[in-house]
């Protein structure tokens, strides 16, 4: 029997004490869910490189215990104005920094801790998820947002949820559990931001559970701009019913080590899953994007475009699996991953995977990795544009393919601004 990693030992030794003060501790359902998850985590520990799904992402620097590293506090490089904001500071809902007044009827945006303490424990389904990082989240979840949208509600302005790591934090881990349900035919945009106002190292472990009822249309944008000594391991699961549409765009610029894992499961005809993203890494940063798209029934579509820009010693990982179940006929699944290496030391690992058990399907994936096109650079320079500007133009153009997929105009401008600011720092 291998010994557990120090961080796992630490968690397990704290569990029995912690459970008494975590939200929902009055509920036997929540307690049972936490205990089951604890056991699953204890059996697996944090994933190491021998676990196939984690072969490219090494958590050793996290699992030996978070150190006292301090990073420069990043300053916001772009801004966005939205009427409704919900803010979590150091993993807890902060009403003072939130403005949730005036939400239309039919839209409820609340804190998970409040819901659980109010006895709304049916939010937590007790299905024993086998993923170690998710199990850890279930065992220790402390707060998060709960978004419940009734049928046929449309909200044009994006809702904004901010997770901020601020100074004065006593605990350096945040296990956020977010639960989203959109009723039949409703349509909504949500912008989720993970940022830091403090330079201490921490471990963010958000888990988001989304259910889209028939005809629901959900645009879900995520900015990961943690400080450069932070760890960010996120899981997002989305269930799509008939004619539902899920659009996700993730922009990652922060964290020392981050993994954004998206699992969409399509159980309805006419549903569409669109996963896009961009990651901009430099220094010693590591970014992992892992997607699993499950087509379980006939007649639906999925598509993905991911773009990565890797400078200095940074590492990029893309793993994308498209699974098409037996009898899930007339399905189309497309995927594209492109990475740009700006430095001789940057590396990229890619594993686009197709798993197909039905014959009447159209599936494709493409993956490329390489440097900027010398000819294009030369062309721009020959038109009087200096080399630095030319490089930036080409990188922006490279990212545009993915950025253009963002259907909310305000978010597109906001994310483009962040990308441009990142490039300016080069």
């Amino acid at each position, binding site marked *: 029997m291998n010994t557990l990693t120090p961080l796992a030992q630490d968690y397990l030794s704290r569990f029995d004490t912690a459970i008494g003060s975590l939200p929902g501790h009055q509920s036997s359902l929540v307690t049972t869910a936490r205990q089951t998850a604890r056991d699953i985590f204890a059996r697996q520990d944090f994933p190491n490189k021998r676990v*196939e799904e984690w072969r*490219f992402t090494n958590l050793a620097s996290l699992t030996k215990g978070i150190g006292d590293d301090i990073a420069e506090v990043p300053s916001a490089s772009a801004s966005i104005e939205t009427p409704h904001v919900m803010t979590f500071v150091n993993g807890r809902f902060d009403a003072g920094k939130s403005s949730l007044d005036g939400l239309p009827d039919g839209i409820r945006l609340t804190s998970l801790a409040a819901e659980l303490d109010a006895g709304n424990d049916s939010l937590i389904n007790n299905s024993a998820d086998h993923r170690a990082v998710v199990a850890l989240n279930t065992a220790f979840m402390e707060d998060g947002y709960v978004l419940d949208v009734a049928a046929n509600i449309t909200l044009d302005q994006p809702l904004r949820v901010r997770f901020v790591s601020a100074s004065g934090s006593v605990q350096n881990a945040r296990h956020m559990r977010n639960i989203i349900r959109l009723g039949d035919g409703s349509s909504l945009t949500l912008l989720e931001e993970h940022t830091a106002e403090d330079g201490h190292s921490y471990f963010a472990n958000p888990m988001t559970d989304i259910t889209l009822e028939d005809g629901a249309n959900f645009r879900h944008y995520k900015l990961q701009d943690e400080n450069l000594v932070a760890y960010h391991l996120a899981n997002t699961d989305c269930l799509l019913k008939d004619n539902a549409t899920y659009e996700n765009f993730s922009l990652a610029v922060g964290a020392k080590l981050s993994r954004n894992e998206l699992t969409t499961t399509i159980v309805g005809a006419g549903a569409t899953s669109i996963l896009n993203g961009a990651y901009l890494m430099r220094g010693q940063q590591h970014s992992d994007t892992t997607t699993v798209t499950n087509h379980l029934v006939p007649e639906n579509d999925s598509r993905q475009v991911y773009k990565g820009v890797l400078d200095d010693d940074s590492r990029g990982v893309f793993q994308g699996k498209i699974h098409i179940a*037996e*009898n899930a*006929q007339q399905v189309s699944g497309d995927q594209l991953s492109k*990475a740009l*290496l*700006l*430095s*001789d030391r*940057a*590396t*990229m*690992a*890619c*594993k*686009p*995977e*197709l*798993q*197909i*058990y*039905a*014959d*009447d*399907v*159209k*599936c*494709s*994936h*493409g*993956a*490329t*990795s*390489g*440097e900027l096109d010398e000819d294009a650079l030369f062309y721009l320079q020959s038109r009087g544009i200096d080399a630095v500007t030319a490089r930036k133009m080409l990188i922006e153009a490279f990212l545009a393919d993915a950025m253009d997929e963002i259907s909310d105009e305000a978010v597109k401008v906001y994310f483009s601004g962040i990308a441009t600011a990142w490039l300016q720092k080069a």
Partner: protein
Amino acid sequence: MAIAQETVEQVASVSEKYKYGFVSDIEADTAPIGLSEDIVRFISAKKEEPEWLLEWRLKAYRHWLTMEEPEWASVHYPKIDFQDIYYYSAPKVKDKLKSLDEVDPELLEVYKKLGIPLREQEVLAGVEGAYNVAVDAVFDSVSVATTFKARLEEDGVIFCPISEAVRDHPELVKKYMGSVVPYTDNYYATLNSAVFTDGSFCYIPKGVRCPMELSTYFRINAAQTGQFERTLIIAEEGSYVSYLEGCTAPMRDENQLHAAVVELIIDKDAEIKYSTVQNWYPGDENGIGGIFNFVTKRAACRGENSKVSWTQVETGSAITWKYPSCILQGDNSVGEFYSIAITNNMQQADTGTKMIHLGKNTSSTIISKGISAGRAQNTYRGLVRMGRKAENARNHTVCDSLLIGDKCGAHTVPYIENQSRTAKIEHEATTSKVSEEQLFYCQQRGLTEEESMALIVNGFCKEVLQKLPMEFAVEAQKLVGISLEGSVG
């Protein structure tokens, strides 16, 4: 006219069942069943091997005992009982043979059925300039005959069973064997290192273009026998060789294990073209019987401008587990992998390649065509790795899968690792099915449904079939048709 005749024959043979499924009653010399150090010693003694080789085998065997069977491939099969296999079986020979006439007539009959032109005279009597192939035939555990040796020797080419090479050219074998696939490499390669019984050895000296294609036919005949052959090909500076490999086995309702190791060493400016038509018995339509084909093939492009090309047509075996790889060490070296993998009924294939780019300006091409029918599962699994020093390395990968029927599966699992800024990697994969329109069009022109399917599938595979040497291409095309028999309608 001749073409019309050939078409008729091809169409006729499309409707054949697995035609190599016969069993030959040949007296065999067999080692006791099971695996132990004694068996390893027995095999080594039978082969009259030198001490160093026995030691190497024993090291491999002891290492094997510490290893676990790999389970990462997407193939499912009952656990293999390694003690229930005969590790050595050889057609019995009375004294040394003086000529082929003294070979067991049953054996010659087998080769006739396999369509191998084994008799030297027959081939030599052929028309001047006719297509010549030197053949090494491996029957269960031993090589039974090698043709054209004299002609090859004129050019300094050594082509013989590996057991003979151990005897006659120990310095070459000692230098190169295990240098590409070390005995610790993986479970099946290690097992092979311990118990390998025969295989082919080729040595092409500096500057020689091998005057003919070299070919090996592997045949498993005896029941409950595992076949563990080892092939070693060395192409010295500036040389060239084209090597063909064919495999068949009788129909039996048990699973037989085939775990081979192939090592290729390519020096500066040299080229090896390695083609395989793998047609081991695939089992019946219910998945009873068939060969477990767990093979390690690897080529080391050691010198500048060296080139290796793997072409494979995988139609047989109940389970195929095979990743012919290229280590592109030399600057400007080139690796190619062209593959057709066809699975029907209950067959499972997990196959692909590894391209490891280490040198500057190295380039590789991967074209993989997977066809899945019946209840078969077909997986492409490949790795492209650009090392830090692989400046301006290039890779282009195309993986296409074709599905026939709604009970089969096609999977693609590529691993792409890039550590070189200046490297360019492109990967594309598609999965589709044969469209109703295509089938209808062909049937409208008077072809039956099965013929239409064979025609369309051959079109799908054409890119790869064209890479095969001519003789093989014809056989492979027919095989494509036969393998898919019963998959439509």
